[in-house]
């Protein structure tokens, strides 16, 4: 039977095609072609890949016992999972964020969808296991995929215990973190000496310091890199949101500023994953847009950095 195209069918099809072209994310998970596949990054030395965009929970998930806000953050997490995200990073330092994450995971029954990463944040180096156990209870996960020493606090003792925990199968990966450019020299020394799966550091289109030493060192040593503060704590949006995207933004797979900032980061060959934080579903959708489509090459990355500096 001939499939006749009526005027009505034509208009509906044209409209859907227009929406699809304008909003690639809308159809991101519904087809198997390359354009809609999430950008995955292999964990160095492992047969496992993770999505290049994860999420942080600093400030955004610290909402205490506010039921209304817990439900709202649960919707943010659901959006993250629905759009292909898995890596969620937290810390005992972030107030109630761990409890809120636990509640949200329970609500979504999503414990098997998460790559759970948290930190050890205590000066007492004998408390590593106890703090990891507390965090496990709060998140409602049996074990963490990744445990990191937060800002190198008591790192010697914690790292030794974390190595034992990894050997015993109590955690899958271990690492160390820094942020805001703190203690990079000591950070590099630890990367050189210790056997680490991941490091977490601050990197964004304005904060480039890690390009000189830490990112090349991570590549050389086969260490995965998680990038925090990709939006410089939101200040990149405050500074540049009102500016136009460059007219060549489409060439680098970018349709908004969130994608611009994130694709700049995850296109660095040393970077495994960036972890932007947000409290809004709409912003989460924008962030996850960076998980799809084209990535800038080295020349285009330079052009992106130059463009931001010129504003």
């Amino acid at each position, binding site marked *: 039977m001939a499939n006749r195209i009526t005027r009505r069918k034509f208009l509906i099809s044209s409209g859907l095609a227009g929406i699809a072209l304008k909003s690639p994310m809308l159809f991101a998970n519904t087809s198997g072609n390359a354009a809609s596949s999430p950008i995955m990054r292999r964990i160095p030395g492992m047969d496992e890949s993770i999505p290049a965009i994860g999420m942080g929970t*600093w*400030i*955004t998930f*610290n*909402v*205490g*016992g*506010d039921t*209304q*806000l817990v439900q709202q953050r649960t919707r943010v997490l659901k959006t993250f999972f629905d759009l292909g995200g898995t890596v969620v990073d937290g810390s005992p*330092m*972030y*107030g*109630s*964020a761990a*409890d809120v994450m636990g509640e949200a995971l329970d609500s979504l029954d999503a414990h098997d969808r998460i790559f759970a990463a948290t930190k050890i944040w205590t*000066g007492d180096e004998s408390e590593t296991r106890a703090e990891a156990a507390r965090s496990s209870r709060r998140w409602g996960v049996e074990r963490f995929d990744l445990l990191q020493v937060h*800002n190198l*606090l008591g790192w010697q003792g914690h790292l030794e215990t974390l190595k034992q925990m990894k050997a015993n199968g109590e955690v899958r990966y271990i690492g160390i973190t820094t942020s*805001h450019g*703190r*203690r990079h020299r000591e950070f590099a020394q630890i990367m050189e000496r210790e056997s680490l799966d991941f490091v977490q550091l601050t990197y964004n289109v304005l904060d480039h310091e890690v390009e000189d030493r830490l990112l090349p060192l991570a590549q050389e040593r086969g260490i995965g890199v998680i990038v925090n503060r990709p939006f410089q*704590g939101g200040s990149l949006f405050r500074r540049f949101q009102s500016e136009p995207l460059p007219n060549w933004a489409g060439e680098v797979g970018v349709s908004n500023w969130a994608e611009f900032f994130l694709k700049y980061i995850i296109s660095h060959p040393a970077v495994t994953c960036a972890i932007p934080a947000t*409290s809004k579903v709409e912003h989460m959708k924008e962030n996850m847009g960076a998980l799809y489509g084209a990535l800038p090459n080295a020349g285009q990355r330079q052009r992106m950095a130059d463009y931001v500096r010129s504003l």
Partner: protein
Amino acid sequence: MSGADWLSYSLQDFVMFGPQVFLRLFVRINQDLWPWQVLAVVAAIGIPVLLLRQGRNARRLAVGLIAVAWAVSGYGFLVGYFGPINWPAVWFGWAFVAQGVLLAAAMFSGGVREAALPSGRFVALWLIVVCGLPWLAVAESGQWQALALFGIAPGTTAAAGALIVAVITGPWRWLYLPLLVLWSLFSAAMFWVLQAWWLLVAPVATLFLVGAGSWLSPRTAQSPD
């Protein structure tokens, strides 16, 4: 953590929540307490009346109500609501409870003056504080349910409590002052980071009212003590 480590942190690193979450605390505690905050309003209006009446019992009742306000706002708001998102708030919460106990101890130990207060100025300042400061959270949040009432919200309670310096004597006054100053500095820094400009008025007012309370204090010569 070493001193150098602490110095590498900025003020922003210690404020781990956003302004929306903080302002929702006022809405939530008002919703949870309703209608009992009417008692707080009655107490706020009744305290200056009691303070201005001659007689030991009226003044003791007024000071006792302020002591209860310190303790309730500390345990209720700071420990119960604010603590889960900001751990230093728990310390301040218990310090507020201790401040209430201190005030009660002063009341029973002769640490409260019985001399007459300059009524007009005291009542005017008190009413400005308990009727005006609650609206700062409303102005900041845009929600009238965020009223920061005396006896419930720590900022308004501390500001009104600062004025009571007028009736506290000698060493009790020196014990009473540190929390007022520390809370003002802590909350001012927090509101600055949150860019909650309206709320900044409360800690500034508290420090001003410490001075005003001292100024309104009956001179020793006038006191029967």
